[in-house]
């Protein structure tokens, strides 16, 4: 339990600091690389929550595909490589106040609602039981039985997004 808490503290600190750098850095490429740090530490947090398949998908889809897409976007819009002062608009202070206010409200609500509820301890379970209960197999079973219709709808949505992106981005 202590080891998990230490791991959580480190990962949460890395994720928070990198996230702040994503929205404050003056270099677009650095923002994308800090985003990789956020996504990787969030993926590691999924492992702490016994969701190893989601963690693998996070690494494959987010870091492997989405960040590469972002780097392509940066390249194709010919962003300044290097520091660029014009990345923020002049509502920065209002935005900071909004963000902090929202954080205060959310913190109050969460502390009020969940106080010190603990996640169920899984330490006494065998690895086989844990895998059968919430491992990749259980997730696959759920997707292909209860959530089959949403799964198919999502594949149609991906096709629509693919066609839409091509139609938008191609030259006449």
């Amino acid at each position: 339990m202590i080891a998990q808490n230490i791991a959580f503290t480190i990962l949460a600190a890395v994720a928070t600091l990198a996230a702040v750098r994503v929205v404050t850095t003056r270099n677009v490429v650095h923002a994308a690389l800090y985003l990789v740090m956020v996504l990787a530490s969030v993926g590691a947090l999924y492992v702490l929550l016994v969701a190893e398949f989601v963690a693998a998908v996070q690494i494959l889809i987010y870091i492997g595909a989405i960040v590469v897409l972002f780097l392509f976007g940066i390249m194709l819009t010919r962003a300044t490589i290097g520091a660029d002062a014009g990345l923020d608009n002049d509502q920065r202070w209002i935005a900071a106040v909004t963000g902090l206010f929202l954080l205060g409200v959310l913190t109050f609500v969460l502390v009020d609602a969940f106080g010190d509820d603990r996640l169920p301890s899984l330490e006494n379970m065998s690895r086989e039981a844990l895998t059968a209960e919430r491992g990749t197999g259980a997730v696959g079973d759920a997707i292909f039985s209860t959530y089959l219709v949403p799964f198919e709808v999502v594949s149609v949505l991906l096709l629509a997004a693919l066609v839409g992106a091509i139609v938008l981005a191609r030259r006449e």
Partner: protein
Amino acid sequence: MLVNQFLLLGAVLFCVGVYGVLARRNGVLVLMSIELILNAVNINLLALGSLQGPQAAVVGQVFALFVITIAAAEVGVGLAIVLLIYRNRHSVDLDEVDLMKG
């Protein structure tokens, strides 16, 4: 572990993402901030699912997978739109995209 550890981290990531959406003027950076917000949602889904027991944990994972898929679709279309803005105006400054401003 407390469930609030995860939920509060999600709240922090969400608020940082909201700040980014409001304060950035580069279209690509706004999309990156939206990714932060979606990640915060995924942390919440997994933590709350795990809190409710094994069945809900699986449901939380399935929902998180759907959110990741939709995030991928969103980035694809969003970047195509940003690219189109760049092609028409030679800049991705979202403050200049104010055609619909009254």
